């Protein structure tokens, strides 16, 4: 077991780690998926793998917005920047995500007016300041981020803006979890549930996983201690033969979520019949589209988009890594053609992507270990 004194609460970490070691049944394995990319990042950064028993396997889930965005949607978004007198705005995470014809950063260097914003409201400001230009916000993110986009669209409407649109790529985590549970090559014993998504959705949407699939879910915070506690709670449920939704992150996450944020979502968005996820394929009702009555703010209505599906580069195995079938280092391109300087797939772009986290934090020997 790794020395625990480098953690903020070395005693507590040591205690929980020991409890996990005592609790596990050596005769079985535990396959636990941490759904959220923030958890993936924390697990790698803090070397939590090293304090866990070998028979607990952590599978990295799809909770990284840029990682699950298919290349075709990146191309669609970037095509907007090629329209005359148009400013395309995106979050920093998007700037290095490769589309077929390059990343937003590269297109910007070639002259496209692409700007990084920290808030969708900053894009509204740009629309106010540039009345002669069309400003489009390239929206990505799970339920944590979507309510902010919703209020931004309502704000643009209240301001009477006619030069502001949103290219909506908001996805919802629950259908993706169902798709993973239904996937034939997926054998999971339980889930570390997403923390900040649950501040909006609450814990109730995960109850079907316990009820229908009989798998435990523990919504968890992001500190090493949170994640270890969540894993211990999962192990205890599994031993007791229980499957329920527990909330380890109670200090931040109310069980019922944030009603105002849920109302904002319902006011602005409708569920798409289906949406493509990188690696997971088309998933029913897994993404949000802007309501028809707000079509004036919908980039998919206001711009003609290519809408072409693009398959991942053949050698890249992002899909298998996203589903947890392969470990990052098992991909043929990992650390070679695909690295954080020059990512081929989005999992290598974001610090929440399993590949970038593995590349950055796994020791050299561990990175080569498959």
């Amino acid at each position, binding site marked *: 077991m790794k020395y625990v004194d480098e953690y*903020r609460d070395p005693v507590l970490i040591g205690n929980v780690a020991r409890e996990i070691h005592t609790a596990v049944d050596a005769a079985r394995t535990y396959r636990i998926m941490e759904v*959220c*990319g*923030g958890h993936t*990042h*924390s697990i790698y*950064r*803090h070397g939590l793998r090293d304090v866990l028993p070998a028979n607990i396997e952590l599978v990295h889930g799809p909770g*990284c*917005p*840029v990682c699950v965005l298919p290349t075709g949607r990146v191309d669609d978004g970037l095509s907007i920047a090629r329209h005359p007198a148009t400013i395309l705005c995106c*979050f920093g*995470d998007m700037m290095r995500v490769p589309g077929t014809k390059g990343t937003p950063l590269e297109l910007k260097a070639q002259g496209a007016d692409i700007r990084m*914003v*920290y*808030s*969708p*409201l*900053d894009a*509204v*400001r740009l629309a*106010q300041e540039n009345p002669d230009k069309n400003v489009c916000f390239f929206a*990505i*993110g*799970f339920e*944590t*981020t979507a*309510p*902010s986009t919703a*209020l931004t669209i309502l*704000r643009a409407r*209240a*301001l*009477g803006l006619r030069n502001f649109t949103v290219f909506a790529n908001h996805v919802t985590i629950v259908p993706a979890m169902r798709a993973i549970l239904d996937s034939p090559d997926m054998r999971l014993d339980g889930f570390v549930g*997403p*923390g*900040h*998504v649950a*501040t*909006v959705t609450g814990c109730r949407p995960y109850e079907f996983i316990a009820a229908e699939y009989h798998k435990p879910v523990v919504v968890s*915070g*992001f*500190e*090493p201690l949170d994640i270890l506690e969540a894993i211990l709670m999962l192990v205890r449920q599994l031993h007791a033969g229980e499957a329920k939704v527990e909330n380890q992150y109670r*200090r*931040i996450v*109310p069980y019922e979520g*944030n*009603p*105002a*944020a849920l109302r*904002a979502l319902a006011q602005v968005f409708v569920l798409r019949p289906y949406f493509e996820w990188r690696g997971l394929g088309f998933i029913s009702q897994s993404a949000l589209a802007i309501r028809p009555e707000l079509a004036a703010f919908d980039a998919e209505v206001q711009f003609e988009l290519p809408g072409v599906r693009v398959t991942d580069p053949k050698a890249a195995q992002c899909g298998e890594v996203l589903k947890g079938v392969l470990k990052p280092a098992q991909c043929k391109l990992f650390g070679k053609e695909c690295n954080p300087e020059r990512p081929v797939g989005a999992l290598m772009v*974001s*610090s*929440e992507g399993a590949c970038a986290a593995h590349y950055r934090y796994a020791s050299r020997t561990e990175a080569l270990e498959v």
Partner: protein
Amino acid sequence: MCLAIPGQIVELHADQPLLAKVDVGGVRRNVNVGLLEEALAPGDWILIHVGFALSKIGEKEAAEQLQMLKAMGEDELAMEEVRGYSFAEQYAAPP
């Protein structure tokens, strides 16, 4: 991506009820509080995500969250994000 930044409310604006001025590590910016139902007062702590308050939290939770950002090496990124918010002016003008 799901970075949530703790900030302390330093000022509420009677004429702009959707905005609150927050202090994040000495940087003061306005954030949108339209996603919160709770009554807010100066001194309250909130979690901020892409310019919006996502939830009201306790002082202890805020300190822990800040500690977590540091431990994740994301505190600089968080400060950069807060410094980057530049949308408050739009709320000053009547819609």
